[in-house]
């Protein structure tokens, strides 16, 4: 056992640092540091800079244009990005549909989709949840009926993140009504420009427009857009959910956010607040090392399993805790609300700067224990898969 990074790992870290110092787009960097929202083009520029470095497929195998990095390298990479306050790497193409395509797709599909995903020429979104199917995902009702060379898709998806920017959506659809609801589900790629698709914004309690409803009315989808076999969509979906949870604990971002909080509260005499921050920090350290243990297991050849549910639960609990500490440390100065269009006055309210974003972040993070399989569902998974009850 050895806790230290190897020489190779340290060299790799330096390489990432160099990239961040030299090739991370300046206009993105500035906005990030000032807390200004990024435009769609900013996000594209950011992802393209990674692609140009050869790092877009940071978690992909080499044969599909990925880096082939070890879990530890990915960990180092993500840490450095968080430390440099980089934007999120959008997961929909690179972490979700990409791995599904290269694992279960045909050669034609690989050739057609993977390069655009890596180059961020296409913005993907995820069509899983439906109004009636949240935790009970397999009860989904969006129908795809085969007619000649097309599937005719009818139904609706909800909580679709950034669908307003998306070029493509990957969907779970019902191609057959079966006894067992997990059967009869298929995995379909749909061009968002196809007639019959309508995207309607959902405003969340933080006032943001991040998620959407997507409605499908007689949408014609070529049969070659089916991934793998018809009726096997649930298998692919589970595969994807496992991958989605990789990194879901959000440790690097929390470390960065904690550092800022400590700067903000430095010298304040609220003993109880300082103590609570220490309690949080201890649990964050524990979570970080729990993630490292699971990375070590991955590096040893094991597959991501129900352990990732622990990371999801603890990670989101801690993220939510941290946003709550921010809120409480800001006192009454949290009240003025900066909507998506800024404050409704030309001036910025008085009070410490961090107090203006504290509540929005707090409210925004409420979703993390709900999406990606709610924490209650994760506990059911652990109970069944690990405890065997």
């Amino acid at each position: 056992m050895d806790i230290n990074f190897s020489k190779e790992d340290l060299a790799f870290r330096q390489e990432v640092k160099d990239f961040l110092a030299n090739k991370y787009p300046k206009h993105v960097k500035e906005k990030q540091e000032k807390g200004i929202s990024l435009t769609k083009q900013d996000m594209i520029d950011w992802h393209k800079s990674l692609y140009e470095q050869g790092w877009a497929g940071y978690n992909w195998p080499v044969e599909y244009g990925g880096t082939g990095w070890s879990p530890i390298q990915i960990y180092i990479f993500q840490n450095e990005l968080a430390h440099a306050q980089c934007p999120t790497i959008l997961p929909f193409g690179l972490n979700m549909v990409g791995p599904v395509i290269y694992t279960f797709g045909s050669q034609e599909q690989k050739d057609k989709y993977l390069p655009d995903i890596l180059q961020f020429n296409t913005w993907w979104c995820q069509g899983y949840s439906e109004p009636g199917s949240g935790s009970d995902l397999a009860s989904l009702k969006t129908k795809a009926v085969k007619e000649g060379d097309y599937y005719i898709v009818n139904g609706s998806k909800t909580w679709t993140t950034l669908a307003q920017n998306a070029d493509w959506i990957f969907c779970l659809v019902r191609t057959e009504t079966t006894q067992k609801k997990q059967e009869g589900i298929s995995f379909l790629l749909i061009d968002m420009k196809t007639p019959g698709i309508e995207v309607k914004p959902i405003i969340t309690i933080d006032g943001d427009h991040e998620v959407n409803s997507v409605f499908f009315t007689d949408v014609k989808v070529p049969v070659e857009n089916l991934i793998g076999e018809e009726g096997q969509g649930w298998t692919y979906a589970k595969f994807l959910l496992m991958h989605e949870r990789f990194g879901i604990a959000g440790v690097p971002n929390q470390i960065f956010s904690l550092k800022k909080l400590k700067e903000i509260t430095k010298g304040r005499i609220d003993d109880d607040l300082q103590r609570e921050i220490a309690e949080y920090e201890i649990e964050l350290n524990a979570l970080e090392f729990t993630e490292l243990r699971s990375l070590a297991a991955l590096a040893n050849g094991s597959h991501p399993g129900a352990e990732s549910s622990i990371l999801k639960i603890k990670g989101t609990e801690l993220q939510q805790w941290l946003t709550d500490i921010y809120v409480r440390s800001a006192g009454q100065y949290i009240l003025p609300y900066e909507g998506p269009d800024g404050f409704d006055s030309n001036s910025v309210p008085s009070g410490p700067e961090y107090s203006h974003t504290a509540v929005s972040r707090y409210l925004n993070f409420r979703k993390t224990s709900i999406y990606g399989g709610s924490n209650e569902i994760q506990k059911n998974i652990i109970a069944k898969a690990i405890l065997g009850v």
Partner: protein
Amino acid sequence: MNLNYSDEQLMLQEQIAKFCSADYSFDKREKIIANSLGHSIEIWNQFAELGWLALPFSEKNGGLDFGPIELSILFEEFGKALVVEPYLSTVVMSGYLLDNSSVDSSALIEEIISGTTHVSTAYVEANSGYDYLNPQTQILNGKLNGNKSIVLNAKHAKYFIVSASDNSEMLIALVAADAAGVSFNSFRTFDGQTCGDVSFENVDISENAILFKGDEAIAALNEMINYATLCVSAEAVGCMSETVKKTVEYTKERQQFGVPISSFQVLQHRMVEMFMEAEISKSLLIKSMLQLNSKDPNALKTLSSLKAQIGKSGKFVGQEAVQLHGGMGVSNEMSIGHYLKRLTAIDSQFGNRSYHIKKFMHL
């Protein structure tokens, strides 16, 4: 010892509850918030007609002379309906200071009671935190200078009541919002209300604009904050009980895995815990309003225990309600997230849980 509301109190409660359910639906509230004013003049006029704006004022000033119990009843119902009208700011906070000043304010109070005038109290500053007894704002040689923060309903105030110092003692002054040297920026708050930063630059203050001086100013400010603390706590209790109710209803309707999610034991127990938090908060509310009413020597200690408990229980109830609503919980269209917002705002006002635990320990 008698823990039952009087018939008169029960009637008041029923009247408010009826009004809120008939005239203050969540959809209507959303429309009220969306208008440029941020609250409804029509609703405010109804408050005036129903006599609610007169509730806490003394009889000599045309009020009903109601105390902590009736205010708690009112705010508990307001909490259930998430009422955004600035009753707290104009009637409770400013109203208390005007009503209890030795300067005759009966004309202005009459305007408040009739619903035509709003008054806001400006006692928070950008660096004051919860310490409102050491204002940086100054009144020297009849001139008011300084900046106030988080002034509730600043945009609609015809007058500001301003805390300041003359370098030897504390002063509380009444200032017309349109006086020369007064300016403000207004902001929406995340819980659907409004507040503002208000600046005073060489504003003339005549001697009869000083409502309180010295120890009297401190006592009045403290007492005003105590009343406001009780009111928002009662509001939080209302928020909580309504949140629990709505969550139970939602889980009975929402089907997953072929059954209503209320049939899952984990969610049942979670709702029981929410219910218990709401109940014990209500217990401290009753204790607190009764002690304030009877001027019990322990009243302030109990008030701090109430506000501290509200911070903890309110957060738990609000967060769990959102969680149990799943995706719908974080949707702005549903009311449930707005209860969480208001509960979060209430913890931050007039001293949060941490502040009041310390106060509890030292009282």
